[in-house]
């Protein structure tokens, strides 16, 4: 994927969110992501971990991330459901499922609904998983770049207004920023 590799050079920082109901798995994955010595290195990784998919979704409301990694089998909701919800919040995030178990139906939902980029099986190989993460990040960066360029072109051609283009640019940079959540009483909801 030469284009992805090309855009990899543009990756300056990677915000990762990892969800697994087992803290030890989260710790291991965090260490793996942060460990620069074992190639391939993830550029400037920032790792957030959650044992609860619900809390992770709350976090995603206001915090844009580049990549979401999720376990499949969790007590609160399964990985496919979680990533489907996460996708609604941050459509431009890349998504990976890493699991020891999933049935065909679950995998289908993960691909069709959650639009995952990779399915990694447990036990994972650090090298392979990191390679997958780097590749997915690069792919995602490319998609975002494409979208930006496309918007630029459309704006220049007058297909969309300056305002619309600006909104989309903002949304790409900070997902959710253009969507204001209203409470029932008409107040603006701020969650942080």
């Amino acid at each position, binding site marked *: 994927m030469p284009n992805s590799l090309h855009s990899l050079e543009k990756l300056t920082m990677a915000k990762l969110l990892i969800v697994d109901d*087992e803290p*030890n*798995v989260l*710790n*291991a*994955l965090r*260490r*793996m992501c942060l*460990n620069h*010595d*074992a190639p391939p290195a993830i550029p400037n990784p920032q790792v957030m971990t959650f044992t609860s998919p619900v809390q992770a979704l709350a976090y995603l409301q206001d915090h844009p991330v580049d990549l979401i990694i999720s376990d*499949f*089998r969790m007590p609160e909701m399964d990985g496919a459901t979680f990533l489907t919800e996460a996708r609604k919040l941050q459509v431009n995030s890349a998504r990976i499922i890493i*699991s*020891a*178990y*999933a*049935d*065909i139906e679950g*995998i289908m939902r993960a691909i069709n609904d959650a639009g995952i980029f990779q*399915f990694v*099986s*447990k*036990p*994972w*190989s*650090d*090298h392979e998983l990191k390679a997958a993460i780097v590749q997915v990040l690069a792919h995602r960066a490319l998609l975002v770049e494409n979208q930006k360029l496309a918007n630029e072109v459309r704006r220049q051609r007058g297909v969309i207004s300056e305002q619309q283009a600006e909104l989309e640019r903002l949304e790409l940079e900070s997902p959710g920023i253009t969507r204001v959540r209203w409470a029932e009483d008409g107040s603006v909801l701020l969650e942080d």
Partner: protein
Amino acid sequence: MSITETAVALGGGKTADLAWIRALYEFGQTAAYGADPLRVRQDILTHIVQGFDAESGSIALIVDGTEDELEIAAGTDLPQGIVGSRLQRGVGVFGHVVATGQPILINGNAAEAGLPLRVSEPRNRPAHSAMCWPLVVQEQIIGALAVNRATSRQRYTVEDLDRGQALASLLALVIANHRMNVERDNRIVELSTLNDTLQRVNAMLEDAQGQLIQSEKLASIGQIAAGVAHEINNPVGFVSSNLGTLESYLQRVFALLNAYIEADQATPGPATPALVRARMLRTSHDFDFLRGDIVDLLKESREGLVRVKGIVQDLKDFSRTGGEEAWEMADLHAVLESTLNIVRSELKRKARIEINYGNLPKVECVPSRLSQVFINLLVNAGQAIGAEGKVTLSTGVDGSQVWIRVEDTGSGISEENLSRIFDPFFTTKPVGEGTGLGLSVSYAIVLKHGGQIDVESEVGVGTRFTVHLPIRHTAGAVAQPADDLFKSAA
């Protein structure tokens, strides 16, 4: 001896007449021991005809399963072909006697005797004096007996008729007894046939039950396997990842330490107290050993994890014994050859491989799964051989099935182990060399193919595994073993 005398004998107890009765009884006994019933009845009749001092006699019996249909069961002086023939229903002397249950005496013409019937006894010479008694057993008429005396002789009297009734009863008993014996013999034959059938059915049932138990065992173990695989893969995942991270951390720590050591050695002049303490620690903590051993520690731990992963992989394979794969018509010899290529290097170190292929048609199967079975059997065969030996691979056709046989000249399997070799996790191999799943996986795969694996073994001589497979696969022909019950473990 005249009938009168016989009758007297019955009442008076003369020894000679007792001998006659005894002879009659013995005929009945003979009949009991399976002699030809026709012969026996004929002999009894002859005996009775002599006893009544008659010229001829005949016996008619009611045909089994009918109410009044008569059949000539025996007769003296009868034309050929009469014995065994049926009599017209309700007519004739026999018909009359059986219908009324009363004995009759006929002297001269039957019509003259006041019989309300059309007399036409099936005999070529007309009787002059005749008696006919019903044969009664337990108040049921089973037939009739008739004796005839020629014209020139003295006529039978009513007294003769009365006295003869006792003999007729005796005869009835003998015949009934004989019938019962024959029936009993038939029943014994029937029962033993039935018994044989039952035993065969029972054996089949036991066989089927054994297979069912085995497949249930496989199914439940497969379910556990799928669950266990998931549970194990999580910890294995992070332990393995942590080991990798630890190794990379340690490299950095060692790099740092090495730098310090080099710096220490490169520093001229007297050592500072801190340096002295560091040097002491380095010696007392056996630092060089630690550095070397940490590498081994990590390597060994990693090996352990690789093994755990292998077992988990086996478990996963076990829970998928051939459901998803496509069935195809495959040349099993080609499958065997490709399998042999995989295991040949392991086998040829100590075993000669002898190939004895028959003429096999293409078989409907999942080749990759069968290959797994053959690998297991061939590797086992190789492992059973101590120093050197022979592994024979042969194939053949048997009706609608084919068979593939793997035979080794190895150590053999003891009888107590033989019944357990298909049990999941049963292994005689040293710890770490076998998970005990190979044969149970093979069993499940073959079962899935609608076939079976037979094993024969003798300790010290060798073992022979025979895989039987139907040429055409019929879906659902076998109890579903492990697969389909689980979701695929990812």
